[in-house]
């Protein structure tokens, strides 16, 4: 009874959050060299705003959304009961610990386990929010290890444009502006490819999706 109430509340909260995201950003998904079909995928995106995964989640067609879990920082999402409810129940996030000294589980092993259960994942390979002037921060190696562990899974680059203007860091109230999410052709790790070469290729694949007039 409690469990079903909780899951109903989670669905309702999810609907409210994605409706709010649509109201603010009218997100437009552009599928460029890839189709929105229910295949197992790892969506990797640029990370400029706290709303990034909500928007990506909202922009996915609902059959895909149901099987997609964001990978999020446990040290952020478990700090309050409300955050824990949103992180665990609403988004069914794979919660990983970014602090090597404190963690009990290996983040890559957790992501692989989620993939093995059939889920798709949303990850931000920069590892933190980018508030610098550079378009992307250097990628962490997690994407590479994930690609090595499950080489058959599609790694789909997603460029999220404009969300950092909707809600610049430090502001409380968002401004409604249209956001565009460009999904690119999937990449896979080559058998002989080194970590640095793969991460450089993944970075280029993501940067190639930036809109021409992103000024």
């Amino acid at each position: 009874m409690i469990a079903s109430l909780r899951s109903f509340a989670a669905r309702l909260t999810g609907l409210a959050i994605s409706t709010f995201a649509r109201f603010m950003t009218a997100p437009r998904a552009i599928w460029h060299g890839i189709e929105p079909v229910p295949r197992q995928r790892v969506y990797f995106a640029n990370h400029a705003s706290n709303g990034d995964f909500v928007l990506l989640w909202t922009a996915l067609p609902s059959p895909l959304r149901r099987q997609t879990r964001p990978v999020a920082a446990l040290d952020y999402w478990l700090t309050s009961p409300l955050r824990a409810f949103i992180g665990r129940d609403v988004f069914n996030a794979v919660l990983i610990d970014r602090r090597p000294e404190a963690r009990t589980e290996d983040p890559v092993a957790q992501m692989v386990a989620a993939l093995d259960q059939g889920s798709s994942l949303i990850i931000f390979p920069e590892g933190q929010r980018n508030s610098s002037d550079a378009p992307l921060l250097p990628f962490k190696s997690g994407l590479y290890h994930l690609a090595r562990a499950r080489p058959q899974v599609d790694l789909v680059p997603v460029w999220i444009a404009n969300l950092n203007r909707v809600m610049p860091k430090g502001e409380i109230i968002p401004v409604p502006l249209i956001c565009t999410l460009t999904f690119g052709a999937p990449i896979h790790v080559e058998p002989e490819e080194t970590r640095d070469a793969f991460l450089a290729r993944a970075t280029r694949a993501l940067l190639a999706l930036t809109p021409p007039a992103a000024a």
Partner: protein
Amino acid sequence: MTSPHLLWLLAGVGTILVLASVIGEILRLRLSPAGENPVIENLNARINAWWVMVICLALAFIAGKPGVVLLFALCSFAALREFMTLTTHNRADHWSLVACFFLILPLQYWFIATDWYGMYSIFIPVYAFLLLPVASALRGSTRDFLIRVSETQWALMICVYCASHVPALLYLQIPGFEGRNVILIAYLIFVVQLSDVLQYVWGKLLGRTSVAPTLSPSKTWEGLIGGTLSATAIGTALYWMTPFSPLEAAGMCLLITLMGFFGGLVMSAIKRDRGIKDWGHLIAGHGGFLDRLDSVIFAAPIFFHVTRWVWSTT
């Protein structure tokens, strides 16, 4: 708010749409059975979107004044969201942008709903225009200041101020026309949008000479003259549902169809400058709200004020 005349107009529009849907379906079966002809697909998407727009408008008319004010407030919101996405602004403008969406827009429509003419006709040009730059200036960023301020002001002017004159028509007091003001809105939108459609049709059939080649190759003199004149003729034939005589109706129709054309032209110039084809993507086949509303937005304030000066007692 429904009146027999409104029902006639809606029935007429419904008939046109049924006809358009049937023709669209025949064309699809003949020329694009597997969805391979983009022109036919776009035509059908446009017709379907017209159904949705007409149904929304009809529902708002049934809901009465609050419904119409709310519908146009939401349209303004969507239009402003499209416009602001393209304007120059930086972090220092955050609060002035928030104010545009969540303070100025609701207040403007509140003044319309309470029929405070003296306020809604100056609120944005006086209060908003003077106070918004202050909010940006207090944050201290001077880079591109004049560009940022003026683009924000123009966005408000087009998307909120001008658009809000459509529901304002409900509050005019025209002797002998009481209780039928909703016809003014239906008539304005019908004639202007019909002119858009007919300009497109005449342009496709006969269009040779471009009006402004650098702006939009699809706007031709043949389309402009054919579209405005035929929309004016149809609008004039409907004079009996308006407060206008046939000659007055013809003059009004010519005025609003020309303003509608200018609206399309000006908004095309902005799109061309910013390197985009459409303002948005929410109205399938048409683009964004501004792509569909540009002509009505330019025609509405002029139609409102001319009607007010000549026919209204307020």
